[in-house]
């Protein structure tokens, strides 16, 4: 296959590829080969992939081609390459969560997302880099080196699903799966100029997702456009009896919901998201997006989410607390890293864990342990849970007067590598607009709506009512079809 046609393939949307595959104008083997070659050439400079599995991918492609030629059990993803953030448990394939403590860990079981995608006939290209245990907003806290933003190598791609966002933006996979606990899909999607969606809490199963903060973690698709995002979401959404928090309602066909009509929709713009230090270009882009939607027939109203400024503090009590318990299982006993020296049990625990965890993870574990400990629980953890109720109610009240909310995703454009790694609070502030959505358990998505003067992507956020992913996708699709931002790709 010529290089140019391979390049073409790697810039087509997943929906297009799916059509070509079904028409047999393209084989999955060819397509997968094109991606494997590109990854081989390009991954070093960006460091998106922590693990590539070309042999497996080609074998899966071959099996997919069989299905396609027989017309058997076809799904929109059959034969389409995908990549998974290394937080997803993949049976028989090393899964590290970008941590030394899990280096070499090969899961004995398959997670829900991985097995659904396998059944759908998707082809796994590899596992994607991330911030260790999903704790980070820049993918600089990975044990396997930082990921670079394809739009500017000196900048971060965002995090924690930085590898996923960069890989999609750079055309190293048509589709990726990420997770979002405080913005980890939406923020990197914005920084890399792609589409990322965090579903309603419970919409997608967490079984097989290495846990960070159980009441906040959600799985979501990352893609180049809204239709691809909808396609991926349909493949993974739905009830799972292995996850007690999984919502029993069946998921609709999200791609079918993309009518692109926003006439009569009311979209709220929260006052509190446009104060305090938001970058001027970002503010302007998001307001311009509002105008576009207005032009398409939507009504824009000002709404208030009064407790917004407390969301970050609330999150940085609840998330570390849950994480401190979720990460207690990494003790060197049944799997993962065990320190060589210690002969005494407590020492074994301490040294194994200290050797295995990075500094940001250690920081959050200690903060989380503290806020749960005797004497502090009421003042911190219980208090934060009450504030969480206030934040959730802000949104539910707001939805009394609008169908969806439009907001910025990040307060700043992509920042330089190393700029914020030494100051935890500065780093955390990246997520002030995304965190409230996780606390409220609502669906939220990010899609490109502009570029800075320096040629870096700007994203806009849409936040929806519980289980209204279809509504969000529809508004996003209408905006996307009326603009060109999604067509821009970084030069590699």
């Amino acid at each position: 296959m010529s290089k140019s046609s391979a390049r073409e393939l790697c810039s087509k949307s997943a929906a297009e590829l799916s059509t070509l595959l079904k028409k047999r104008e393209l084989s999955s083997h060819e397509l997968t080969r094109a991606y494997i070659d590109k990854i081989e050439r390009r991954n070093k400079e960006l460091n998106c992939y922590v693990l590539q599995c070309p042999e497996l991918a080609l074998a899966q492609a071959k099996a997919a081609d069989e299905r396609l030629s027989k017309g058997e059990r076809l799904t929109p993803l059959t034969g389409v390459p995908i990549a998974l953030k290394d937080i997803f448990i993949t049976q028989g394939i090393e899964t590290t969560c970008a941590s030394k403590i899990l280096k070499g860990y090969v899961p004995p079981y398959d997670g829900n997302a991985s097995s659904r995608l396998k059944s759908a006939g998707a082809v796994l290209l590899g596992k994607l880099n991330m911030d260790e245990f999903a704790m980070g907003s820049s993918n600089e806290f990975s044990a396997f080196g930082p990921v670079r933003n394809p739009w500017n190598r000196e900048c971060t791609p965002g995090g924690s699903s930085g590898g996923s966002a960069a890989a999609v933006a750079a055309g190293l996979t048509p589709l990726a799966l990420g997770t979002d606990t405080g913005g980890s899909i939406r923020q990197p999607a914005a920084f890399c100029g792609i589409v990322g969606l965090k579903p309603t809490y419970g919409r997608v199963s967490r079984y097989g997702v290495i846990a960070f903060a159980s009441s906040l973690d959600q799985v979501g698709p990352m893609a180049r456009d809204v239709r691809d995002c909808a396609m991926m979401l349909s493949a993974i959404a739905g009830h799972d009896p292995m996850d007690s928090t999984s919502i029993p309602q069946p998921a609709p066909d999200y791609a079918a919901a993309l009518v692109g009509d926003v006439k009569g929709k009311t979209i709220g713009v929260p006052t509190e998201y446009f104060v305090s230090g938001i970058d001027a270009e970002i503010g302007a882009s998001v307001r311009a997006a509002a105008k576009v939607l207005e032009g398409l027939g939507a009504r824009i109203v000002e709404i208030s989410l009064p407790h917004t400024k407390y969301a970050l503090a609330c999150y940085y009590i609840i998330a570390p607390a849950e994480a401190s318990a979720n990460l207690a299982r990494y003790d060197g006993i049944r799997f993962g890293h065990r320190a060589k020296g210690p002969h005494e049990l407590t020492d074994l625990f301490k040294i194994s864990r200290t050797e295995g965890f990075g500094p940001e993870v250690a920081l959050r574990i200690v903060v989380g342990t503290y806020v749960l400990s005797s004497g502090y629980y009421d003042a911190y953890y219980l208090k934060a849970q009450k504030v969480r109720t206030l934040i959730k109610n802000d949104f539910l009240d707001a939805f009394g007067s609008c169908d969806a909310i439009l907001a910025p995703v990040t307060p700043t454009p992509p920042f330089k590598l190393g700029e914020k790694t030494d100051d935890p609070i500065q780093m955390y502030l990246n997520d002030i607009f995304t965190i409230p959505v996780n606390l409220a358990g609502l669906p939220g998505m990010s899609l490109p709506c502009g570029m800075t003067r320096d040629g870096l992507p700007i994203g806009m956020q849409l936040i929806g009512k519980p289980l209204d992913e279809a509504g969000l996708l529809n508004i996003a699709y209408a905006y996307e079809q009326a603009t060109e931002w999604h067509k821009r790709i970084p030069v590699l």
Partner: protein
Amino acid sequence: MKKASDIITVVEKTTSLARLRFEPSEFGRFAEKVEAVLSYVAQLNELGTSGIEPTSHAVEVGSALREDKAIRSGIDEKILSAAPARDGPYVQVPKVIDSE
């Protein structure tokens, strides 16, 4: 405002409780970061929350109960093979003196 020595003690105790350990040279900087985060999150005390129910669960409704049917996983050996120290069918650990 906590005294510097208070913070060090608290962070030491909490770090030990979390089964982590730092080199003395790194510990000071680590404790500073912990304190920075704790100070930041303490702003929640500005908010009155009396009468507000805590959100203890992200999903409140539903009943995810499983029927009592025993199913063998069939992957005991795979699970055990991941253990860093093993003796036959057992996982090995340094001798434990006290029972819980």
